[in-house]
Each structure stands twice: as structure tokens, then as C-alpha cells.
């Protein structure tokens, strides 16, 4: 009995002190991620998720979290596998909400629209690196780049038009081509594109081949016969590789540009550097496929270091940089919120106020300045085209403004 007394006292003291200690400890901000961690789109989504997770963990480990005038917080990153099914994404959102989520992120385009009512009702802001998001409508959503998937081809067409005008308008009429697979995002990417082409005085020739086929030669030959000056490829990486193989076999010699549904890095990894040589693509951030010998921004160097530290045995992936950039935007939003809000009051609404103040944020040079203002959370609205040279990518255009078209709501 006597021997047991010190032990009982210790237990009692611990019981009394532990809640007090916990209260004294900085509150963790729960950042949720709902992505397809399994299924056909998991490759892209997992890279994006790893980038934001690794960056926020890096801040926790090296700087003890994110600090503002009112205090410091650590982030706790929780993920849920949606398998790219909107119903499951909604279940995941509810689960993460139960776990205290106050901010969420993803690169899954379909989820952004399907979950609008959920995150608006819960007042949990979204920071998305999605390149295929149909349209950024919600006041609670913050993007990194453009106002919707339909802007990819529109911006490319304007770029081609500018180049064609610079070259003295050869042929009198600008003829451009698209080659697409029959993947679900394609109709959104080409949304009312004929009207846009007509407005711009461009003749647009469209061809499609089924995903899974191994030859796109007939479609490419028809584009060649139509006299197209350049071809835009709206496909995932596997579809792009099929189009590229067919083009090489035909000695097509027409510049081809990949839409942002896949990165040039993906195409190089899948088809090999030789096949991808000369292939163009768009990025709204500085890609990891850039030759390391040619340097890069501080943000790119950080992304490379994070990759080397966390995934030493794997091939670097461009979408990882997209994820890192999302992590940076999240951290910036929290930092700005902490300027006025103490850590224990850091709700979704408070973080939204922080995000609303993001101004001229470049992610250590990873992207063009991101400024969020009322009714415009789109992001930088800047894109740059790159080309594959000897297994790496290098810029083929300067940064240029994207179009700001929005697919009508409903």
C-alpha cells in the first residue's frame, strides 16, 4: 500500500497536468487532402499530394511550423483516397472534417466542383493545384493558375496566332489541329472551342482516336492533309506517346504541344527522351524536368531537395512541383492568417482571410506572382511553353497570360 502511493500520486499528477500541457502546446492545423491514391489517375494525384505533404512536413521539421505575428502552428496532413469518385470524395470530406480539417487541397479536378456545397457549408477553403478543374467558381477555392480546363487550348491558340503573325501570316489563314483521345476530360477541354476559333479567325481541325489504341496515323495524316501549322494534343501521357510514335513513323514534322493533362516529364518517362524530342508542353511552374545543370529558382532547388530527401530511389516528377507550390500557397495563407489571428482561433474562415491577402506570391520563383482578390482566386494566370531537348525541358516561350474563359455554371 505504502509502495503504491508514489505511483498513485504520479498518475494523479500526470492526469491533472497532461491536459494543461496539451493546452499549452501549439495547436496543429489539420490540412486535408482528398485524392485518387488508387485507380487510373493515381500517378498524377499522388505526386501532387506528396509535394504538398513533403513541403508542409519540411516546415514542421526545419522551422517548427508556420509563424506569424500572433503565434506559430504546426500542420498535420491527413489524406483520404477518393479513387477519383465524387461520392467517395464527399465521404472523405466528412471524415476529414470530423478529424478537425480547416483547410484542404487536391489536384483532382472533378472533386473541386462536386464538393463545392460541402466546403462552402463547412467554411473550409480549398487550395487546388488541379489543372483540369472545370471552372473555379467558389469563393472558397484558390487556384494556382487558370480559370478552367477550357483555357489550355485557348491560350495555346493565341500563342500560335502570335507566332504566325510574327512570321508574316504565311498561307493567309491560320490552320491549327487538335488530336484527342476519348478520355472523359476531353469535351471539357474543347468546350465551345469552335466558337473561339471562329472569333480568332483560326481554322481548327479536330481529330480523335480511342484511348488504348496503338496507332493515330490516320488522324495525323488527315491533319497534315488539312494543312495544319501546329497540333495540340489533348490526352494523358499514354495517349500522347501513341500520337508521338505515329507522328515519328510518318515523319510528320509538324510541331506538337501537350496539354496540361500530362506533363512533358510524364511523356519523357513513358516514351523515352528520343521519342519526346521536340515535343512541347505547358507549365505554370518551373518543372523538375529542367536540366539540373542549368540551375533554377530557389523554389525548384527546394523541390529537388525535398524529392531527394523523401523519394531518393524514384524518378523526379513534375507534378511533385505542382504539389510543392500548393503547399507553399497553403503555408502563405496560414502565415498571413497568423498575422492577426492567434493559433487557437485558426479556423477555416480565418485561413480564408489569410488567403485573401496573398499578394504577389511567387513560391520562391516557382511561378509567376499569385494575387488573390475578391471574386478572383484563379492564381497567376500565366503559363510558359517548354520543349523537350535531350531528355530535359527548356523554355520555348516567355511567360504569357492565359485566357480567362469559364465554362458556364450548371
Amino acid at each position, binding site marked *: 500500500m505504502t509502495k503504491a502511493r508514489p505511483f498513485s500520486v504520479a498518475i494523479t499528477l500526470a492526469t491533472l497536468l497532461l491536459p494543461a500541457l496539451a493546452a499549452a502546446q501549439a495547436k496543429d492545423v489539420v490540412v486535408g487532402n482528398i485524392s485518387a*491514391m488508387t485507380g487510373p489517375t*493515381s500517378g498524377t494525384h499522388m505526386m501532387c499530394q506528396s509535394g504538398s505533404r513533403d513541403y508542409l512536413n519540411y516546415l514542421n521539421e526545419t522551422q517548427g511550423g508556420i509563424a506569424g505575428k500572433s503565434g506559430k502552428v504546426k500542420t498535420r496532413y491527413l*489524406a*483520404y483516397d477518393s479513387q477519383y469518385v465524387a*461520392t*467517395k470524395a464527399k465521404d472523405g470530406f*466528412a471524415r476529414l472534417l470530423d478529424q478537425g480539417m480547416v483547410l484542404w487541397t487536391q489536384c483532382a479536378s472533378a472533386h473541386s466542383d462536386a464538393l463545392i456545397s460541402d466546403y462552402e457549408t463547412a467554411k473550409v477553403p480549398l487550395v487546388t493545384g488541379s489543372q483540369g478543374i472545370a471552372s473555379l467558381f467558389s469563393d472558397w477555392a484558390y487556384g494556382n493558375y487558370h480559370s478552367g480546363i477550357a483555357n489550355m487550348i485557348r491560350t495555346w491558340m493565341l500563342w500560335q496566332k502570335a507566332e504566325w503573325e510574327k512570321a508574316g501570316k504565311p498561307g493567309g489563314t491560320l490552320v491549327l489541329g487538335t488530336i484527342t483521345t476519348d478520355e472523359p476530360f476531353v*469535351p*471539357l477541354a474543347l468546350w465551345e472551342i469552335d466558337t473561339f476559333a471562329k472569333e480568332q479567325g483560326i481554322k481548327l481541325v479536330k481529330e480523335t482516336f480511342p484511348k488504348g489504341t496503338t496507332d493515330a496515323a490516320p488522324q495525323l495524316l488527315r491533319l497534315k492533309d488539312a494543312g495544319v501549322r501546329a497540333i495540340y494534343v489533348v490526352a494523358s501521357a499514354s495517349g500522347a506517346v501513341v500520337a508521338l510514335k505515329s507522328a515519328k513513323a510518318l515523319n510528320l514534322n509538324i510541331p506538337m504541344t501537350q496539354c496540361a493533362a500530362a506533363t512533358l516529364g510524364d511523356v519523357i518517362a513513358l516514351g523515352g527522351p528520343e521519342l519526346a524530342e521536340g515535343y512541347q508542353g505547358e507549365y505554370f511552374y518551373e518543372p523538375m524536368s529542367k536540366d539540373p545543370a542549368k540551375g533554377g529558382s530557389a523554389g525548384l532547388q527546394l523541390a529537388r531537395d525535398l524529392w531527394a530527401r523523401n523519394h531518393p530511389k524514384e524518378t523526379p516528377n513534375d507534378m511533385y512541383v505542382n504539389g510543392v507550390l500548393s503547399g507553399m500557397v497553403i503555408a502563405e495563407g496560414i502565415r498571413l492568417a497568423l498575422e492577426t489571428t492567434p493559433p487557437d482561433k485558426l479556423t477555416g474562415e480565418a485561413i480564408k482571410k489569410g488567403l485573401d491577402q496573398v499578394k504577389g506570391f511567387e513560391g520562391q520563383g516557382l511561378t509567376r506572382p499569385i494575387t488573390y482578390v475578391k471574386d478572383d482566386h484563379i492564381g497567376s494566370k500565366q503559363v510558359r511553353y517548354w520543349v523537350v531537348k535531350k531528355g530535359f525541358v527548356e523554355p520555348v516561350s516567355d511567360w504569357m497570360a492565359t485566357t480567362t474563359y469559364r465554362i458556364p455554371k450548371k
Partner: protein
Amino acid sequence: MSRIPFYPPSGVYSDSYRKDMRIVKTGKQRLMAIAGLVFLAALPFIPGLNAPYHLRLLIGIGIAVIVALGLNILTGYCGQLNVGQSAFMMVGAFTSGMLNAYWGWPFWASVIPGGLAAAGVGVIFGIPSVRLKGLYLALTTLGAQIILTWIALYGVTVTSAGFTVEPVRLGGIVFNTPQKFYYVALAFTLGMALAAKNLMRSRLGRAFIAIRDNDRAAEGMGIDIFKYKLLAFAICTFYAGIGGALLVHYMMWAQLESFTLQDSVWYVAMIIVGGLGSIEGTIFGVIFITVLKELVLVVGPMAQETLSFLPIGAASGMMLVFIGSVAILFGVLEPRGMAHRWSLIKSFYRLWPFGY
């Protein structure tokens, strides 16, 4: 009924066909059914169980039960394979959703048209069942999945982009939270399950079973094979359409990605695991597969973080191997489904302590 308080080991003696066909045969069964209903009704108020996440899972289970019940009527009772159930669900979902979003029809007015539209399309794809059987028929329903998805993707502009749908309303109540929608899902699930149970005890159900067991013999007995097969398709796809209509009004969003071939395969898996030709089995199968899938979705990310030395995506992908292995094991160890296991448990319980 009230004279028989519990189910005796010798079985319940019925002196008429009507009594023999009763669903609830003993007082104890009635008591348990009432207790079960009270529990289900009270569930959104029970601490620990009433988290939105849990309620969302239950709503998902309820909708899947409706869709799988339809499939079990066609496949389990009538013997006709269908691997395109989620496409028919999509027809009901988009019909109900568009009636609501573009013409302002409330849920209560658009849910039945959703079911009927799915049934109409289902009957068209069911016509080949007169001449085709087994895997050949499965191929035509696979075709339905591909054709209907293609139409939704390229044929109709609004369905390719997705659109918002109004929540269910009744008087002044808006069923826009899991706590509220749970009751809509519960009412529909119980109603549709009871309807299926009754249907299968009727002349129609007996005709389906006769066709399943031997269609030539059934025809010899005077059953109009063409009519009943098409009826089975209509009922199956009507259930799918109702499930789809419920889903879009629950999600308040209609989107093509919710109705994939993979979903159709899962519905087939649910009725096989639960037990073909069993209403109770369908419910067990849906619960089992849903919980298993949920484990993958929850444990996958945890495995991803814990086993960070593995390549990105490998740990979460491993969970799919797990779910596949469980499905194979189930097929090997209990090919007659969970319904059979349930009947064994009930028999054991009835005979206890004298079972041998």
C-alpha cells in the same frame, strides 16, 4: 402470429398458404424488427454513431442496396446477367437531375420519372436476352455501359460537364445534410427492399425463378419468357434509376464519374458475396463490400505515410491487392454467399443447445 412467441426447432407450423408466406412469422421476430427500426430511426441521435462521416457511409450503403437489389432480382432471381447496372443508374440520375435543375421539378416529382427512364432504356438493352444467355447477354449489358457513357460524354453537353441539383425538400424541411438525408435514404431503402421481398413472393417472382432454373421448362409451363425477361430488366433498371436519382439529390451534383464500369462490377460483386437470389444477402453483400472498400480508402493513406520507404502510390495500391484477395477467399470459402452463412447461424441459434 402472436401465438407463436419464438421460432421452434421444428419450424413454424402454418395451416394456410397465406400464413406460410408471411415475412414475420413469430412474435419475437416482430419484436426484433420493431427494435431494429427504432434503432435505425434513432441512429442520427446516438453519440459515436451520428458523425456525418458514419451517416454518409450509411446513406451510401442504402443507395447501393437499392441498386444491388434491382440487380439481384434480374441476376439472382431471373438468371440474367447484367454488368452495366451503373449505366442504368446514370440514366435515372441524369433524368431526375435534369428535370430538377433545368425544369424545376422537385425531387418527389422527378424520382419516379428517373426510375422509369432507366427502366425504358433497360428494356431496350434487355431485348437481346430473349435470344442470348450467360456471358453473351453480359456482353450486351457491357455494351449498354459503354454506349450510355459515350452518349452522356459526347451526346449531351450538360452531362459531360456535370451540374448542380437541388436538395430534397419536404414542406419546410431541406434534406441537405447527412443527418436529414439519412431518413430519405432509409425510407427508400426499406420501401424498395420490402417491395423486392414481396415481389419475389408473388406470381412474378415465381416466374422469374422458374426462368432462372430452366427457361425451356418454364416456357413449357406457360410462362411468357420474353415478357418476363423484359419485366425483370425493367424492374432491375427501375431500381437502378431510383438509386441514381437519390444519389444526385443527395450529392446535389450530377457527374459522369459516379457511374463507371468499375461501379457496375462492384454491384455484381456485392450480390455474389451476399448471395444470389436473396434479399437479405444483397444487404449483407453491400455492407460487406462497402466496409471493405472503405477500409482500403482509410487504411491506404495511412499505409502510404507509414510505409514511406515504398515508391509513391505503392502502399495505397497494396490495399487493392488486399480487397481482391478477400473477394477471392470469399468465393472459395463461401460460394453461396453471406445469405447462406446467415441461414446457418439462424439454424444453429434455433436448434441450440441441441444442434449436432
